[in-house]
């Protein structure tokens, strides 16, 4: 069953351009930007979907339309059977939103104090609220920060608490807009693991916007790529991996290079002092390895499939 249905969605913004400062005192000039251009897709219950795209592609705008924060210019959106822009209370009770680098927690209070307001507004039974808060805060290692004023917490701690605040009420859909931005590796790993767990154990549908490929690979099953406001790819990660760019990336480690004509072996992807990486078709792999190792003192070899990044880059560049 589809819990999100989007048909021919469009969003345009009026952007002020300042050319002449004297004129701009009296009258502003505008240009129209098409942030979302005729986008259509559906999401089933329990899916974990990633929104990808270059900066300014329209991913966050689409997410905001799905949560009712922005009104579409035209097109239809249905989320959980509701029109998000109506901001129906029942609808808001069933969703959660987390935005990287933004905080909904009251800056002057502790997280626990803000959560007590959420308990009331989401009508979470008090015992369930306490046990859930306890469980979630221990899971994300922030139980000792629940009573610290939010302004005194680090970004990682704040984001984890934001995440808890967004799922305390057991939403059906969780929207995440760059949730791991600016976080250290361990925090990122914790959050990704946590998201996967809640998706599998509680059947929460995840809609994730991110630039971090590891976020996508480890948390999501399906990828939607938006570029210049248009949906250019909509399929599973497995499909992406098996149908896009099957090149191999071979990294040779050496202590000294004998051969000066490195370009003759193939396309160089990356070159450093003690290593060089070639991008090569799978059929040419054996020949590359044998010719390179015969002419150079190779210490080690890594062979990798195309990183997800490269596949996505290819999609961006296609349109």
């Amino acid at each position, binding site marked *: 069953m589809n819990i999100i249905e989007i048909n021919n969605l469009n969003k345009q*913004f009026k952007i002020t351009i300042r050319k002449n400062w004297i004129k701009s005192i009296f009258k502003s000039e505008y240009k129209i930007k098409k942030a979302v251009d005729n986008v259509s897709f559906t999401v089933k219950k329990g899916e974990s979907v990633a929104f990808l795209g270059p900066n*300014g592609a329209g991913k*966050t705008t689409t997410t*905001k339309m799905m*949560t*009712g*924060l*922005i*009104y579409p210019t035209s097109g239809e959106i249905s989320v959980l059977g509701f029109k998000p822009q109506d*901001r129906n*209370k029942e609808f*808001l*009770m069933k*969703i*959660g*939103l987390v*935005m*990287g*680098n*933004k*905080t*909904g927690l*009251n800056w*002057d*209070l*502790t997280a626990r*104090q*803000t959560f*007590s*307001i*959420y308990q*009331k*507004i*989401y009508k979470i039974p008090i015992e369930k609220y306490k046990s859930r808060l306890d469980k979630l805060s221990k899971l994300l290692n922030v139980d000792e920060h629940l009573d610290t*004023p939010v302004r005194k917490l680090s970004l990682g701690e704040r984001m984890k608490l*934001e995440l808890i605040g967004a799922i305390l009420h057991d939403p059906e859909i969780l*929207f995440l*807009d*760059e949730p791991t931005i600016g976080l250290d590796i361990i925090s990122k790993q914790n959050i990704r693991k946590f998201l996967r767990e809640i998706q599998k154990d509680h059947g929460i549908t995840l809609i994730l916007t991110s630039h971090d490929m590891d976020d996508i690979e480890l948390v999501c099953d399906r990828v939607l790529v938006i570029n210049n406001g248009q949906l250019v790819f909509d399929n599973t990660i497995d499909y992406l991996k098996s149908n896009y760019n099957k090149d191999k990336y071979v990294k040779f480690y050496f202590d000294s290079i004998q051969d000066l004509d490195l370009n003759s072996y193939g396309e160089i992807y990356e070159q450093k002092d003690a290593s060089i990486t070639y991008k090569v078709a799978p059929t040419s792999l054996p020949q590359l390895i044998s010719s390179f190792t015969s002419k150079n003192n190779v210490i080690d070899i890594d062979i990798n499939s195309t990183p997800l990044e490269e596949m996505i880059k290819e999609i961006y560049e296609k349109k």
Partner: protein
Amino acid sequence: MGFKDFISERWQIIKINTVETFMLQLSSIFENWIVLITSFFFVIINILFINVLFTNVSTIATYTKDQMILFSLIGNLSFFINIAWSADNMASLIYGVNKGDLDLILSKPLPSLFYVTFRKIDIFLFVKGFVPGAIAYIVIIKWFSLNITFESCLAAIVIFIAGQIALNFFQFLCVIPVFFRGSAEQLMSLSWAFEYNLGRMIPLEGLDKFFRILFITLIPVMISTGLTTSVLLNKSDLLLSILFSIVVSIVFILIKILLWKFALKNYTSASS
């Protein structure tokens, strides 16, 4: 949603944002002392100012020296109560819209207008800012020379509350452009300029009839200061003033709700 739920949600918001803020504020000792000392000093300067004026004149807009000091006291009360519950929240709203933090309020089933209006109720700021100076005012005023009655006191309280609602609305008006243009700090400071230079410096009777009406209606900066003092001193009709204040507050609340709905409809939110 039932009426009980309606009240219970809002009460929870007010309770948390008041009591809890108070407890947290107690811990910032240094800042507390700065506020206390500077506010007290402000009052001393004010009292000096009035004394200097009255060495040259015997009345200002029919107000004697003690009546002017009372006006100053009420102006100070209005200022600190407004800062404690209104001005700061409106400034935060500007920030929230610009940075996109408002998204995280709007995506929750919170009564959004109520929440952003009462997000922070800093009673402690009011206590440390207003009380020390008020003691100085109270000690200096010759209360027996003032024509204050029990009825005028009650009327003044009602009008003062209406004035606060009006001030909040006026500040809210100055915030609305941020939903469309992305900047409103100058408008906020313009509203402050009106409130301070007019609301707290000039008694109601210091203005022509036209301006008196203007500054208690369209630019309602004098209700909780000038009109309140005038009523308290029995210089204005009590009943008329009470009725007027109640009507004006209801109208302002209704317009505020409509404006909020309109602003949200046009809200494009800051980019991530």
